[in-house]
């Protein structure tokens, strides 16, 4: 299979991820959308690495995974803090800061 197809797949995944962020009220799901976007980028990196015939892109993907993991930690911590206070993880509910 032509590696460029994986790039298209990555783009589609990126789009799906961002759609999740925009459409899902659940903070966790939205956050998963973000992770999906990051992984779409990873997929793109790896595919391009393959296209260019070198490993740099794959190495980059590892970096990204580590960073994404750290991000998950912080993200979940924040979401949990919000949940403990509000008993809800709806993204629409905390909207006191506006205007």
């Amino acid at each position: 299979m032509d590696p460029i197809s994986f790039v298209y797949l990555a783009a589609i995944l990126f789009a799906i991820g961002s759609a999740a962020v925009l459409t899902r009220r659940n903070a966790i799901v939205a956050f998963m959308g973000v992770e999906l976007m990051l992984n779409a980028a990873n997929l793109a990196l790896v595919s391009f690495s393959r296209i260019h015939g070198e490993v740099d892109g794959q190495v980059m993907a590892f970096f990204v995974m580590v960073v994404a993991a750290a991000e998950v930690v912080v993200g979940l911590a924040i979401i949990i803090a919000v949940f403990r206070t509000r008993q809800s993880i709806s993204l629409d509910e905390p909207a006191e800061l506006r205007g």
Partner: protein
Amino acid sequence: MLDLSWLLIAVPLASAFVLLLAGKRANSWGHWMGVAASASAFLVGLIAFLQMISRPADDRAINVHLFEWIPGGEMHLDAGLLVDPLSLTFVLLITFVGTLIHIYSVAYMEDDANRRIFFAYLNLFVAAMLLLVLADSFLLLFVGWEGVGLASYLLIGFWNFKPEYATAAKKAFVVNRIGDIGLIIAMGLMFAAFGNLDFDTVFGGVSGASEATLTAIGLMLLLAATGKSAQFPLQSWLGDAMAGPTPVSALIHAATMVTAGVYLIVRSAAIFNGAPDARVVVAAVGAFTLILGAVIGMAKDDIKKALAASTMSQIGYMMLAAGLGPIGYAFAIFHLVTHGFFKAGMFLGAGSVMHGMNDRVNMRRFGALRAAMVVTWVTFGAGWLAIMGIPPFSGFFSKDKIIEAAFVGEGWQPWVFGLAALIGAGLTAFYMSRLFFMTFHGKARWEDDQHPHESKLMMTVPMIILAVGSAFLGLILASGDRFVDWLEPVTGHAEHGEPVIAPMVLIIATLVLVAIGIFVAWRKYGVADVPIEAPAASLITIAARNDMFQDSVNRAVFQRPGQHLTRTLVYADAAVVDGAANGTAAGIAKTGEVTRKMQTGQVRGYAATMLVGLVILVIIVVQGGL
């Protein structure tokens, strides 16, 4: 003494300053200082005159340099005086008549708490008027021009606690200012054409200027003159100016200031000589005004306003003469001088009458004052005869010459101007006789509380002197063409033109018309009963009583639209000009309010904004532009 002629201006000016600054402590001596200042100016003028006539006729223009005035790069103008026959004539008229009126005023204003200020203003006027006639440049002349305007404003409004007097003062100043536009523009034209504003440069440069330029300058000077001299169309202020104390009316609004316009035109003879079209307009304005003033004068019941109308009319004669060009300049000045005497005398007489009648001015309430005020009657009579041009009174010599000169020329002009002058003479005789008879003859129509009495010596003496002048000055000056020759260095040689009608016929015609005028007036006002209330009259009389509706016209044409314009602009300034600024501010704030709503607080909305933003930016960049 000629080099010291700056004293002419400095002395009264200094006196005015002292009087204004000294405050109440000058109450006891202030008026005498005012008289002294005016008298010493007269003395200086007299000595200068004597020195002048001892000089040869072609060496009678002396420039007195005063100080560096405007040392601009292009406009380089020094303050200096030009002492020549013309200016000296005025100096003598102003200081002599002025001094008499000062003396008169000492008594006339005796009861006024602010007499010293009155004298300060009078001195200020004398100084300014002398500056006007002595200036050696148009700009310095303008200084005096405005100075007399200020003095006139202050004196008309001397009793400005009466609102209508304050209004009259303002009106005089504002109308004069309209005329000033003419002088300013004329100076602009001169500066552009000749490069400077002093008489030497301007008159020296006339030969190199186009006729169009000269005509423009001439018309602008005429505009200025109409303002100051109360000629049509800027005549409306003079009647109201009678609000000032009567000595003021005599000095400023009869004898001197109002004639400044005539002076201006005669002084600018060099320009008008090169602008025949402008001259025709001058003459036309003069001719029209002389009829207009006479008609108004026939209908007025207020003695001072009647005299004011007469002044307007007489200055019309002078204007007409000045507009005739070289043949008329000298006669204009001649008439100006004699008029200065007889009109001042009559105003002082009117003042005397008012003094005796508790400041009343309505002639319908006068009558038969001859017995109570003999001196006044006699002196006034001299003036009356003089103004009508009854030989050998002075008016005869001056006015008759103008009538004769008006008939000189070709085409329609001599007929129109000449007939106007001729008819004017008849009208003059009528309205002056009407005034004279209504006041001094007929039955007494006094109100009950009146006890007419002759005025004090201090008032009657000046009247007597002026009456003597009214009687004989014309004869003295006219004999041997003395006066005309004296002015010749300034006005140029007056070619004797042949009038279209023989001079003798003209004299007779004039006298006949005058006699008719007197007769009609005698029948109506000397013999018949004069109704106390003004009777219903023809349209023309009503119009004349209302100054030919000049105020209504002004109000309708200028004042009302002006007020509307002002009000509209005040509104527009707030609503449109400022509104644009405030509206922009409000619009921005409104935009803020609207935009702010986009910040919904919904994080998903934020994310959507970001994504849309990204997409748009990507499209813009990849497309390479919008």
